[in-house]
């Protein structure tokens, strides 16, 4: 089964870090990604640029509304994701727990709903 691990954290946390700390954090993510790849479970991953770059779009009554900023104005923001393919929720949870993001933020684990082809 595929699960999307969504990494939520406080963006300000990153800018408060010293360059050395940032480097260490990046290293931890690299190692984690490497471990997922080695285990053959990684189906995709990306980091997202900060919410200051976010734009929301909706169409109401045929009119497109474009707004600056993220959809939900919460303290923790979606900062990246891992798409993994594992046998069950327990496996997904144990990968989520290994992700560096789970110690400085929150990871939401969602099963992917496969599309009929």
């Amino acid at each position, binding site marked *: *089964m595929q*699960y999307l691990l969504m990494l939520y954290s406080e963006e300000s946390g990153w800018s408060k870090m010293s360059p050395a700390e940032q480097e260490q954090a990046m290293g931890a993510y690299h190692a984690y990604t490497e471990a997922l790849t080695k285990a053959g479970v990684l189906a995709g991953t990306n980091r997202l640029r900060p919410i200051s770059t976010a734009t929301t779009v909706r169409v109401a009554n045929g009119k497109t509304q474009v707004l600056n900023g993220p959809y939900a104005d919460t303290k923790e923001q979606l900062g990246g994701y891992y798409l993994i393919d594992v*046998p*069950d*929720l*327990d*496996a*997904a*949870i144990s990968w989520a727990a290994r992700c560096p993001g789970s110690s400085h933020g929150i990871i939401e684990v969602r*099963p992917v*709903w*496969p599309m*009929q082809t």
Partner: protein
Amino acid sequence: MSSRESDVQARNTADAVARRSYGKLVAFLAARTRDVAAAEDALSEAFASALKNWPLTGCPASPEAWLLTVARRKMIDVGRRRRSGEVAAAQLQVLADELDATAADVAKDFEVPDQRLALMFACAHPAIDAGIRAPLILQVVLGLDASMIASAFLMSPTTMGQRLVRAKDKIRQAGIPFRIPDREELPGRLGAVLDAIYAAFAEGWADPGGTDVARRDLPEEALFLGRLVTELLPEEPEALGLLALMLHAEARRRARRNTQGEYVPLAEQDPTLWDSQMIDVAEKLLLHANALGSIGRYQLEGALQSAHVYRRRTGQANWTAVVQLYDALWTLSGSPVVAINRALAIAETEGSGAALKAMDDVAADVRLTEYQPYWAARAELLAKTGAYCEARRAYEIAIGLERDPAVRRFLQRRQLALALSGLQSDIV
């Protein structure tokens, strides 16, 4: 045999299999697909077929294997019809092959592999809402129907039904596995299973008179589950502790009411009315658990029950040991309920004043404002220190919070006795 007799025999056999093997069959049928609802539907259709066929053909040598084969066929039929839905054709074929292979094995040696524990772990998975775990286990492992469970848990049948459906959907859609957790995960995960079983027991315990038909069977069902867990995990001290705790409580059921149906507190119960066989089993379980060398909440609670039983039987109390057990339990759980019981034990060793002080430490906990035993315990202690007016008020709240009429009457009698002793002390 007349057709009537064979009908009865078929029904009795089906009932016995349902009682013994319902959860086993559901666990087996749903293990791969994790579709508990589909397994339950197929199984109930299989039971219906059994009641139709067995009176004509006679009961099969292995009713379990028979039911499994029929249920499996029904599941595959439903799957085929739904092929355009979530279950892809290839997956369906895998399922059919797998079920065929295992069902053939089952038919050969008439033994359905027991995956009930794995099923219980799925139902009590941390991803399942804690409040629905006990109802889910009762339904899925024992086959109790939603309306019965609803009334036992004081919930509307509609709400209960919806929550059960949602929980089953979650198991299937989120891919919650049917497996017994690894050694290092086990203690935490087993705790959730044991908590769910204890919740079922406690719900039934609230109706000791057995006046409420729906709640009456719950302790028995919980004991069944408790025994099942200890059979499947015989070396888990907390599972043994929970079974011991439930047996100790169950052993005193008859003594909790007098012949008029009035509530009798532990201190006034007649120990000869206790089920000594159950107590003996409980004591053996506790000893075994203790030898395994890892203490936990249920063992401590079982040990407390054991201490109370010993005290009432021999007339010899070891209150210091009881306070120590409560101390350990308090450290483990931080539960205000434990703190209340601890305070009552302190009353025996250091007096009511010290007990009231100990109780004040947790009085700020909002959970206690609606907790009847807190107010009753407070009232008791206040009365002993001569604070009759405050004691009367505390009883008033306790009475207002109680839902069991017998316990309510008991508290009212206490309150009344208080009024009299208060009067006397005023006169003297």
